């Protein structure tokens, strides 16, 4: 498993495609907490799907004014189709070219398989990583850790 960036580290900035003609950068979101969820691939089995779960509990993240972002090495058209199919209400970024560059910057790239790890980061309003977690690639980590980290930001 990769060694992901640890709490206290400034979150590396990035700008990745979010739609075929639009990019989203981390620095644009300064001023509110950001949850970065790296994951291996779109189209994993339906009901155990991590992104579908986060979509379901988006209101819980929004209570903390947190912005949720999914990142995988899938291309932007793939993300578009996946978003539509799963009725997702948050952005998926394409870490596609150069492949996995952002995942690597966060220590969240699984080289042998050429995909992102299941790695989670909670970044505070100033752009500092305050919590991170890398789950075994076959285990969807759920959201309990993220919610606890978001609560801790407010203490």
């Amino acid at each position: 498993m990769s060694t992901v960036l640890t709490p206290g580290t400034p979150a590396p900035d990035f700008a990745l495609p979010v739609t075929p003609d639009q990019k989203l950068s981390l620095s644009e979101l300064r001023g509110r907490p950001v949850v970065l969820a790296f994951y291996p691939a779109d189209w994993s089995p339906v009901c155990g799907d991590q992104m579908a779960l986060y979509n379901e509990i988006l209101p819980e993240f929004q209570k903390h004014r947190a912005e949720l972002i999914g990142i995988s090495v899938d291309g932007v058209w793939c993300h578009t189709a996946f978003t539509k199919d799963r009725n997702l209400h948050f952005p998926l970024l394409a870490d596609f070219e150069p492949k996995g560059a952002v995942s690597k910057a966060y220590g969240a790239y699984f080289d042998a398989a050429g995909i992102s790890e299941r790695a989670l980061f909670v970044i505070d309003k100033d752009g500092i990583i305050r919590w991170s977690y890398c789950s075994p690639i076959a285990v969807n980590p759920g959201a309990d850790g993220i919610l606890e980290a978001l609560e801790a930001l407010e203490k």
Partner: protein
Amino acid sequence: MATLKAPITEQDHIQGNVEAACTLLEYGDYQCPHCGAAYPLVKNLQKHFGNRMRFAYRNFPMTQLHAEAEAAAVVAEFAGTHGKFWEMHDALFENQDRLGDDLFAELATQLGLDAAELQQAMAKRTLTDRVRADFSSGIRSGVNGTPTFFINDRRYDRPRDYDTMVSAIEEALAE
């Protein structure tokens, strides 16, 4: 490892020996095909363990994926207020491909419940609130999709096949 943050209480739907040394808890969604597949699996586990295990069910409707999931959960809770939770729980899973208002009314009638009262109950928030409360407790406990099982208070992350689950429950009983 994720652990159950909301312990099983008398408010829960529990089947089997309440004093059993092991609890199998499912967070499920009546419209989820994986939960549908797990339904006979749970029955087999109950048969195998008899009095040594109790089974509890909590709602985790994935409403963005499954349009009828929350309504079905409310229907089961409504049946629960008349002491027929498990009958409805089973009927919903056994008719998973027909979920919808027609089926809900049909099953209510079959179980001797008043379909008109069911409609009134569904229009009110009380039962939906209970379903949402289950959902929230699930999130807090690391439920990561449906079905998610807990054996005692630990999330079960291993494969969902009969033999593997039997071993895991045996291990929990041996602790």
